[in-house]
Structures are given as C-alpha cells and as structure tokens.
C-alpha cells in the first residue's frame, strides 16, 4: 500500500528561534504589524510503501526520531494519508 506522511518539525517552545525573529522583522517592514510571535519549522512530505497503516506509522516515527528531527531541540507531528 502507498502512503503519504506529512510531517511538521518545529523548534521546541523554550528554544529561541532566530529565523522566526528575522521573519517577524521582515513582516514589520512589510507593514504587517501586531504579529506577536513567529516560529519557523520544516514541512516534510514523505511518500512511502508499507503493508498497512501501522507499519507506515512506525516507519514515520523512526524517520522522525532518528533523522528528521533532533529531539533535543525540536518536536514533530505528522499525519498519514492513504494514497489512491
């Protein structure tokens, strides 16, 4: 079966995000004010094959924990869709 995992990786809440700070400055220059906070993360789309949804989840979890996210400073969420 073919699945598509959509993964979001974000810096943990307590970690300073310089990228987000810089983007916020840019938005101010663009005239968009009253933006309280911006945090920048990564969105990863992974197409994979697995026997079933459970296996697809396991593969995605392993990918996130071992490579895609650094658990010391980042956290991840994902959803998995069955590809038709």
């Amino acid at each position, binding site marked *: 079966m073919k699945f598509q995992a959509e993964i979001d990786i974000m810096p943990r809440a307590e*970690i*300073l*995000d*310089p*990228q987000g*700070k*810089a983007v916020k400055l840019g938005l101010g220059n663009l005239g968009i004010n009253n933006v309280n906070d911006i945090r920048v993360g*990564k969105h990863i789309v992974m197409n994979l094959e697995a026997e079933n949804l459970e296996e697809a989840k396991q593969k995605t979890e392993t990918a996130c924990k071992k*490579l*895609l996210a*650094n658990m*010391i*400073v980042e956290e991840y969420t994902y959803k998995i869709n069955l590809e038709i």
Partner: protein
Amino acid sequence: MKFGVIVFPGSNCDDDMVYVLGKLMQQDVVKLWHKDHDLQGCDFLVVPGGFAYGDYLRAGAIARFSPIMESVIAHAQNGGNVMGICNGFQILTEAGLLPGALLQNNNQKYVCKNIYLKPQTTDTLFTRQLNAEQAYKIPIAHGEGRYHASPEILKQLNDNNQVLFRYCDQDGNINETANPNGSLENIAGISNEGRNVFGMMPHPERASDNLLGNTDGRKFFESVIGQVLV
C-alpha cells in the same frame, strides 16, 4: 599515534587538519573517506569542519548516517579518541557521541572572526598542556554554533568537568559580550563523560602555522601529541 581525518562530501577543513597534523606536528595522518568502514588502524580520529551534505536538514544530521560513522562510534565506545571541530562538533552531537546540540546563532549571523577561549579543564588529552589562566585567540566561522543542552545535561557537564572551553574576552573574562553566538554558559567546547571524545566550534587548526600570524591553536595539538611522547 596515527591520525585519521574523516572526509565527507562538503568537508572543507580536512586539508588544513592534515597539514597541521602531518607537516607541523610530524604525525602519521591519513584521510578516511566517509563511504568506507575501515579506520586503517588510526588511533585518533578527527571530524573536520565544513558543510557535510550541505548542512541539509540540520548541520551534521545526514553525515551522522554515513557508513564510516558506524566505525567512528564503535571506536569511541571502545575508548578511542575522536575530535570534532566546528561541523565535526555538530556531527558528533548528532551522532550522540557528545551531549547537546548546536543551534543557529542567536544574532542571526554567520560569524567569522577571532574570538578568545579559556580552557576550563586540563584533565583531558586535548587540553592537558593548555594554561587554564590564559585566553587563547582562535578563529570561529559558523552560522550554527549556539550550544544548547537541557538543564540536567548542563549540570552533568559542569559537575563532571566536561566543559573544555568557554568564550571569553581578551583578558580571559567569561561574560555575555564575549559570547559570539548565544551558547549556553559561553560553552565553546565539551568532552564526553569518558573524556575520549572532544568537540569545539573554534578552529585551532587555522591558528597553528607561523605564516598565519597566530599560533595559539598549536598548543591544542601539542597537548594531544604530548601524552604520546611522554
């Protein structure tokens, strides 16, 4: 002692390291390609600076899964020495050989300049010949050098004397203005608990040749060699 300098696609301080170890320190040194597993009998491994795998995903994240890293990890777990400079430090943290992580500099800049370092312990092979009262002038060149660790890990580093260097000013004062990247507690370099794996963001190999007008970095390598010659 035989040195091995590991080369990834995107490493760019490998030649400098080979030059310092081979020409200046007169040591046996070979380059080790990341796709190999064979450490060629090297005793001391160096993961040099650069941008392994283009820093894609996170600095050091993909390099950590290169074939040679299995051998590097096994070498370290058997008590063998491993040193990571700059990107090499990032790779060793990603590989779990050193605690913590290196984050984007808090000032949003790639910082390339001389800074000063104060040794925090002389109780390692890498720092044993350094003077703990001296401020060493060493260049840095990185965008992701902000050392971060959980409060528990930080406490462990301090309790076990694992912090090797802190950023300081010219007179050796460790303060926030001397911190070039926002590192926790000005940490510039650490060792593992076993004191056989070392990592630092500054580049001592770029401050070792007389021609460059600064040889403060030489002493770091002389420390390593020193123990062997004793």
